[in-house]
């Protein structure tokens, strides 16, 4: 044992001690932090936060000259046009709209971004686009880990860790992170801490086993931020939304844009743009609804609504449709859509429901393909936002 102590354990201990005292110097010389560009005040669309770290601290804040409405959703936001709210509203009103998201930014990802910034949630104008696609097939298992990490950066996750430890919202965040934790390669310390927090809540035994690991990781996390510097303090600007004397002739916009959509879909009667329709080969699609018990996305949605209610956000929702002519079993998803509507009604949140599973009554032309808004669809959303937030007198 003497040999083990002298030749193996002692050198290892010395190495650890030397590393402890020299880690700051090593970091200083070997690793440099990337310099972030200045946040562009006129930015209208962010695909995620991991590529746009400079916007982390301005998220949910008003800009210098007016209030900003935050539009959060998934793939529909990447179908850009002048009619999209983040273009149409800033082009016509003082109030800005910043859209955040692309495919995969589902309820839990949005929940986590908002929870990280809960101090700024009160009265924050937010519009959340709910895609029916999130609530069926594998998507109903909730936000994928890769998508979650795109939007929920270490800065945001550390902000979640700064929330009250006994908070039910933080506990839900930790539980959901634990669900996909093993899929993450080289998780950040903040993710580890949230996962361990959930694990340690399982039993007294878990608590005892995880306690030292949490203590070590908390210490490391503190050291890390001592070295790289704490992230910029979030901005807490909140401005009143200005009602302007602007009159928009919605009916004309609806008629013209609907006509335009008709012209783009000459190859079919389903009002699907020709290019996309060609990809479908004229075949119908099918939905795979999930029972409520298996629908994690629905649970995420309920927690999202609960969080926004508790933090008194000025939030509204848009329930998007699917093309019922294309999806032959569209009606099977209606119960889930009714759940969403019921939840929003119960919490008195304004919402626009464009879901309709009946091909005979469906507002043809509202979608450009089978699930993304056309210009006509966006104008309907714009009208809803303008009315909900009283942008026009």
């Amino acid at each position, binding site marked *: 044992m003497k*040999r083990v102590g002298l030749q*193996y354990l002692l050198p290892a201990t010395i190495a650890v001690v030397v590393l402890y005292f020299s880690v700051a110097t090593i970091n200083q010389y070997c690793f440099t932090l990337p310099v972030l560009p200045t946040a562009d005040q006129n930015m209208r669309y962010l695909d995620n936060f991991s590529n746009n770290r400079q916007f982390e601290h301005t998220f949910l804040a008003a800009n210098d000259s007016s209030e900003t409405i935050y539009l959060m959703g998934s793939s529909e936001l990447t179908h850009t046009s002048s009619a999209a709210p983040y273009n149409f509203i800033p082009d016509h009103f003082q109030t800005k709209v910043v859209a955040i998201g692309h495919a995969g930014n589902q309820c839990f990802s949005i929940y986590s971004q908002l929870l990280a910034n809960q101090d700024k949630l009160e009265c924050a104008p937010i519009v959340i686009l709910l895609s029916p696609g999130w609530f069926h097939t594998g998507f109903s298992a909730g936000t994928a880990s890769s998508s979650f990490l795109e939007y929920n950066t270490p800065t945001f996750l550390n902000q979640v860790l700064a929330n009250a430890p006994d908070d039910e919202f933080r506990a839900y965040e930790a539980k959901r992170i634990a669900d996909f934790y*093993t899929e993450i390669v080289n998780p950040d310390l903040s993710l580890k801490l949230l996962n361990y927090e959930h694990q340690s809540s399982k039993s007294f*035994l*878990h608590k005892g086993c995880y306690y030292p690991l949490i203590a070590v*990781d908390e210490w490391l996390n503190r050291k890390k931020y001592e070295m790289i510097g704490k992230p910029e303090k979030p901005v807490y600007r909140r401005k009143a939304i200005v009602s302007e004397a602007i009159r928009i002739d919605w009916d004309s916009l609806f008629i013209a844009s609907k006509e335009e959509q008709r012209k783009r879909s000459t190859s079919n009667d389903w009002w699907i743009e020709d290019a996309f329709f060609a990809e479908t080969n004229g075949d119908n699609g099918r939905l795979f609804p999930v029972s409520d018990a298996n629908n994690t996305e629905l649970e995420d949605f309920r927690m999202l609504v609960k969080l926004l209610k508790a933090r008194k956000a000025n939030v509204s929702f848009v329930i998007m449709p699917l093309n019922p002519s294309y999806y032959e079993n569209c009606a099977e998803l209606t119960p889930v859509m009714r759940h969403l509507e019921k939840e929003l009604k119960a919490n008195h949140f304004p919402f626009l429901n464009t879901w309709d599973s009946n091909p005979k009554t469906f507002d043809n032309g509202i979608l450009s393909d089978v699930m993304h808004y056309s210009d006509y669809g966006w104008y309907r959303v714009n009208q809803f936002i303008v009315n909900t937030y009283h942008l026009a007198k």
Partner: protein
Amino acid sequence: MLPFSTYEFFLVMGAFIGMLLVCKLWLKDNAYKYVLAGLNLLFLSVFFPQPLHFFVLIIYSYFFVYLFSTVLKPKLKIWGIIILLLPMLLVKFDIQIASYPFKINNLLSFAGLSYASFRIVGYYMDKAPTEKMANPFTYFNFLSFTPTLLIGPIERYGRFQAAEATGFSTLTSEHFITGWNALLKGLVFKYICAEVVDRYWLGGLEGTTYSSLSSLNDYYAYYFYLFFDFAGYSFMALGIGYMMGMKVPVNFTNPFVAVNPQDFWRRFHISLGDWLKDYFFTPLYMFLTRKKSLKKYPITRQNTALLLTFTLMGCWNGFTSNFVLSGLLFGTYSLIHNTYVIQCKKKNKDVVFGTMNPKAVRWISIIVTFHLTAFALYVFSGRF
């Protein structure tokens, strides 16, 4: 927390080793397996992501091994093997039932399932009908021994039982030093060598002016990456195993100097090669030998068994084309090499190299084997 996935795992293992050393002071040798079972149980139930899955597999396999080897005793062991491999097969086939929105994988899959399944089949194949069932504690330790839980090596029950039976007496400074050295070697392989290859070599030519050479670059880089990554894991498992008092078999010994495909599998993932040889190749070869129609064709029998064995090895990783194709490639290499060896024996001379200097023959063999292996592993990677 999965084994070796994070530094905290090493802290937990350090605590386990410490606990075993303390127990050695107070307990008798025969208590070792119970202490080990307690530690494995603690890791599974507190740190492992899906403990229930693992516990169910252990109970399921223990019951069916008992049923098939002691009660039913079917003439052909294949039925027992199919039942024991069923959870793994359902996962590998990636089945989706129309009425259920998720794949079967989502329900059944868990880390370490493949390795556990191979250990289970090994135990079933080795167990004689008259032999008593394994001690439940030893069986539990055999399947859930923390250092080898996730990435092997594929242990054999007999060897594991013998190592466990030595009790606390193997917790010696010699074992600790052997383990420590293996652990350090594994850490360097996995966290330095594999990381450097992955970051700076693999895919390093993509998007550069030399992108046309990208595939060729990856062809070599992937071989080195796979070796350092996998061998790194295996050495870490071996190291921690030794420090916990269990002799874990060596899984890698210089595969880059292999002179032929047979030699390669004696050096690369040795436990898998041995497992396939003992539990698939040999029984299959014996089965083919008993076939009257094949009695006159010993080379055909051997080559058929070889090709099927390596195809199975490819399929073990999944039923996707890259895995199956790489298995077929390794099978083809072995088949050609086997034919060459038999021809040399028949004609009593080297039918390819003739009287060439043995040193030169050795170097040529190493270079050819290295390139062929790198190609098969490149196919395996699915990067083409």
